[in-house]
């Protein structure tokens, strides 16, 4: 039976200013879908004392809260409430909850204006940029000496990271580069063929792949694949206090965890880029051969003529910079995780987005620099 209340009118023409309120039904957390409304009788008959009577079939602490709240409201309105008709257990429960009522004034919610939120976002981004610079500084400050005493670098960890970030990424990097090479040859070839300049496909694919797409593609895949795993790994280690444990054991986490990752990516990413270059050129060659009548032998003969070693270097020089940025962002976001499991997921997302963003920004900066330098 759902919970309800009923007033008992005083018998006859009572002069006593009192009423009885009977509580009926099952007063439990499962039954109180809607708390019954109690309207106190109007002025003339306004009771000075309310007798509470119970016909309840069940009464739990949630219902006791409702009653306790009513009682305090009635008392505040100058009424007297008599609970002596309730059972001992009901009174105990009521007393337990009554002693623990809080002001039901809602906590102030900090409403923030759009301007304030914009300001906060700007400050947050600015702090993040500062933190990245500080982290970069730490890399130079601590990593520089390590490079001089290179035997102190944890080469075992470096090799493991190269395997995870480089060797295991060969398949996906190769496949994607091959397909991008094909796509480029198709799109460029259609236009070039209309001028009868089919053979220039080699220039198109060769230059774009070596200077831009190979390194960029490899960097983006590594950012998504490896940068995210760095963040997740370090973030989880923070939550399980492993990082603190390392510090307490006198093992600097930077030397043990961050530096090997940076070194590994600086070695692996240029190699991956070179592999991406080769696969991209191969993809272009397949389309040129079967789609536009530029045979394999012509294609590969022309490559050394249209792209020189400088072109290759212009592409590859960018990759260690990409690698440092990807590894640092991944590690920094991981080390910044505080507390909760949801934070790890959040940090991983931020890490991937930031790393890819930074890779493209740096690529653009390099293009401008090359242009100014006349390459």
């Amino acid at each position, binding site marked *: 039976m759902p919970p309800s209340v009923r007033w008992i009118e005083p018998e006859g023409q009572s002069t006593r200013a009192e009423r009885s309120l009977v509580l009926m039904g099952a007063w439990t957390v499962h039954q109180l879908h809607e708390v019954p409304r109690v309207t106190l009788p109007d002025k003339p008959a306004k009771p000075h004392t309310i007798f509470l009577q119970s016909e309840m079939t069940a009464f739990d602490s949630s219902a006791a809260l409702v009653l306790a709240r009513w009682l305090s409201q009635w008392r505040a309105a100058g009424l007297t409430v008599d609970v002596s008709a309730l059972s001992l257990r009901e009174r105990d429960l009521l007393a*337990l909850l009554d002693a*623990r009522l809080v002001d039901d004034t809602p906590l102030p919610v900090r409403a923030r204006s759009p301007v304030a939120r914009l300001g906060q976002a700007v400050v947050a981004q600015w702090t993040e940029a500062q933190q990245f610079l500080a982290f970069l500084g730490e890399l130079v400050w601590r990593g520089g000496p390590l490079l001089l005493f290179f035997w102190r670098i944890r080469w075992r960890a470096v090799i493991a990271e190269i395997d995870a970030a480089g060797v295991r990424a060969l398949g996906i990097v190769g496949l994607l580069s091959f397909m991008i090479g094909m796509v480029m040859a198709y799109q460029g070839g259609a236009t070039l063929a209309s001028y009868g300049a089919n053979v220039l496909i080699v220039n198109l694919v060769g230059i774009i792949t070596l200077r831009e797409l190979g390194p960029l593609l490899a960097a983006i895949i590594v950012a998504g694949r490896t940068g995210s795993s760095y963040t997740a790994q370090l973030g989880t280690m923070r939550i399980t206090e492993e990082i603190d444990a390392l510090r307490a054991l006198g093992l600097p986490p930077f030397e043990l965890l961050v530096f090997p990752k940076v070194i590994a990516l600086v070695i692996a990413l240029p190699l991956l880029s070179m592999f991406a270059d080769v696969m991209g050129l191969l993809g272009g060659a397949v389309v040129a051969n079967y789609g536009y009548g530029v045979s394999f032998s012509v294609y590969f003969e022309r490559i050394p003529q249209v792209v020189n070693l400088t072109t290759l270097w212009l592409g590859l020089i960018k990759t260690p910079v990409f690698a440092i940025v990807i590894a640092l962002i991944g590690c920094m976001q991981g080390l910044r995780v505080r507390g909760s499991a949801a934070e790890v997921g959040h940090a991983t997302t931020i890490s991937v987005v930031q790393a890819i963003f930074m890779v493209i920004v740096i690529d653009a900066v390099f293009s401008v620099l090359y242009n100014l330098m006349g390459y």
Partner: protein
Amino acid sequence: MPLNMNLGDNLNPSPTSEDWIIEVSGLVNQFGANRVHDGLDFKLARGRVCALVGGSGTGKTVLLHTLIMLRQANAGSLKLFGIETNDASEQTRQSLRERIGVLFQGGALFTSLTVLENVLLPIKEHGQFDPHWLKDLGMSKILLAGLPADSAHKYPMELSGGMVKRAALARALALDPELLVLDEPTSGLDPIGAAAFDDLIRTLSNTLGLTVLQATHDLDSIWRGVDEVAFLGRKKMLAVGTAMALAQREEPELQAYFRGARSQAFWLAAKADPVPIHSRDRPSASNLRTS
């Protein structure tokens, strides 16, 4: 009827045959070739506060997980509130779970929710409580568990270890469970905090009519805070009774546990003054003002 209405008038009633909250018989739990429980029998009566003790690795947590139906036993029968769980439908098992409040060893608060949201989660999911009263209800559980009101809007990572336990208790109490299962509730608390937690459990048990089963290593709780102690050993429930009674048994495991080095002071004190402390300062009956 979800709650026994007469409990308030008789705080520790001698149980009738229908009033067993937990009835386990012939329980077997096995991991690979390793048998943790082999034919374990155990009964817990309504309104009792029981400590589950035993050395490390005797399967206390496994037993608790079996009792709250997180783990299916390899053999044996488990009756909760008089209902056999093994051949019950998933729906019945779910409704039984709703009648049990659980406090996990590490608190297991949801880290992405505030304390108040943690407490309100089961109420919103399972209860159909008046939405206007929800926040008030959540706050009352938080205060009931002995947390200050301003902790309601904190996240678990901002709480100390003792506060995490209390917040987890508030969540366990959310749906007014009839059975409260606690896995090492006072481990990691300072002695004063642990004693306060014991008192809290005792008060709640008396007032809300809760039945409490707690796995514990806390000698203070075992000797002073509970009605009975269930001792796990030899893959069975070796003995059930007051700590005093168990200390006087012959089995070497019980002798070692209850009269060994660390327990000895409690044993001697209890021998000198056999009245359990909690029955002396039991929370007074109604002190509700009537004026």
